């Protein structure tokens, strides 16, 4: 059941066919409380279908470092599974909104440009992974769920 749902979830993200919404979606995987499915297992399962790299946005992560890694993965047309374990900083929130609304990065004074803009490559996608309790208790931005297209519950 979970594997079937995961397949549909990835298909929904993969589609480059758009009738109404003109941008690609960002995906969200929510690990429900009491779930026995391990994060490593999820990554392994996703890797069977798409070329994906995993990143963690946690206590020791710096925003610029995460942006660099995401940009590098995009440059290689990879998918990204970004696990979040700390609340989103303001610059991170800005980029998440940019990715969600227009599938692009827009950073002021970055990479030697006054305004650095990078369109997400057509073959890349980004999936956020977080525990339900973490989203509910730690994320202060109140409309977190609205950034995402398909949401997969991992029970």
């Amino acid at each position: 059941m979970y594997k079937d749902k995961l397949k549909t979830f990835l298909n929904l993200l993969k589609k480059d066919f758009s009738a109404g919404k003109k941008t690609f979606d960002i995906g969200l995987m929510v690990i429900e409380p009491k779930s026995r499915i391990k994060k490593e297992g999820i990554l392994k399962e996703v890797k069977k279908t798409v070329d994906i790299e995993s990143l963690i946005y946690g206590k020791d992560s710096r925003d610029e470092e995460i942006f660099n890694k995401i940009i590098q993965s995009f440059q290689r047309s990879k998918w990204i599974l970004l696990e979040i374990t700390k609340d989103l900083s303001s610059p991170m929130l800005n980029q998440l909104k940019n990715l969600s609304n227009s599938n692009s990065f827009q950073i002021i004074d970055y990479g030697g440009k006054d305004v650095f803009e990078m369109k997400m490559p057509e073959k890349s996608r980004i999936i956020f992974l977080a525990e339900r309790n973490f989203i509910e208790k730690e994320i202060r931005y109140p409309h977190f769920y609205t950034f995402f297209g398909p949401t997969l519950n991992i029970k």
Partner: protein
Amino acid sequence: MTEIRFKSPEEIKEDEIEFKMRERGPEGEPQSGIFFDEEIVSGTQEKKKYVYIGNPYSTEGLPLTKLETEATREDIETIKREIIPTKESAEMLEAMAVTYKNRQPLLIEGPTAIGKTYLMERFTEMIYGRGTKPLDFYCSGQTDVSELMAKWVPKTETEEEKKKWNEFLELSETRGKISEIAQEVEGKTNFSQERKLALIHIRLQELAKSAGLSEETQWRFQYGAVPKAMGLTKNPDGNFTFDELNGAGFNLHIEEVGLAEPQVINALLKLRGKSGRLTEEIQVWENGGKKVKSGPKFWVYFSTNPPEEYLARNEIDPALARGVVFKRMKELSPESLYLASDYYFTYRMMGEKPKEKPEGCLLDIYNHPEIGKEISTIVSTFHNDLNGLLKVGEKGRRQRIPLSLDDMARVADGLITEQARSKETGFLDLPRTLKNLIEFYYLNRLADESIKKKMLEKLDDMIFNTTGVTGLVEFEGKKITRKEMFDMMVERASLTEEEKIERAKREAIQVEASLRGTKPGKNSK
């Protein structure tokens, strides 16, 4: 004697544009309030492009705003197709056009679903051409003034150093001290800009030293979103250049300003100029009080959700509200919601339809608006009902889930490529496909299981009449469930013309046989 007045060529043109803007679409809705035109400037013979924006829902005349544009005719036609002409979108676009032309900051407060961000993006494309997005800045409770205005960033070499500095700069104590330095420098009114800059450097180095960081570290000055937008120029190659005094200026969108802390609002108040217009310049203390001039094309648009969508938030700051053109929008009306749903599910925004079915598509549903209209009824009702429940709020949750039109658009997109096959008929199983997509795009976000269960029951009732609340639908003179109706519609749409003729023949024979009281097959030869 009555004097006859002949209309000027400009008036005649405006009448023509107004007439075109008043044309209606298939649902009786106005087509759009957007019109492209080119003019030759007399004298220079230079060709200039313009976009006219008006509100076609306006009942008293149709005031048009004429704006010079870098977009092409094709750009404008594509953008027009991508805007659902609801009353609300027409009103917001009109407000954007008028305030942009008058160099007034605009603030739109309205619920998530109404397209505040989407329309700003399309508006920017209407001015600068397809693919140009505004400079976006999103406020949150964590937003720091330095991100908006300016900051000094230490130049660091190693990852270890970067990490140390990052930790130091993220401390609220550090921010407080930097703010103290700001106040100290601002107070030195008799200092030249160079002296102020030197003082900033000294103070920053002292601060670094006190934290055990290298006082030799060099600092780099960085402008924030506001001064950047004031002095940016979009070049023909699509890149931007910045000039503090001679930049053209650009569109700045500050989102969710209702979430900003008071010190951020105070910084934004610097944007207020004379007579309700944007300021001509701002002074940036971090740069020793250097002025940044507001380019002629600089424009600021604020957007925010109403306070009830943010838990424990107050109304928008009154000083900010007074300094901008403040437009408060209500939720999309049921008519607009239905119109949007109809646009999505009858695939009117799709442009050119695919010649071949995409992968995962059993039925080219985008070529069957009759089915789309029925799906639209279900999804818009579901969307509306769930929205109502979510307004009450999920029990004890900080996260809010305001639904948006994108959710509908996603279901419409998914219906093309994620079609499930019915084991009974071999055709598209529309109810199962629809339920599956609604789960992914609406229900899986919900943490409250009781709302999820309630909405699933509602959906089942609408499709299968499980509890009899929604009831049956009338279809070709019969009262049937929506599931039965969908099965019939899908089957018809899935058959080829030959198969349809064959089927009609068989049905005619059946009718004839039943009239004669005989079993079909006996006389069918």
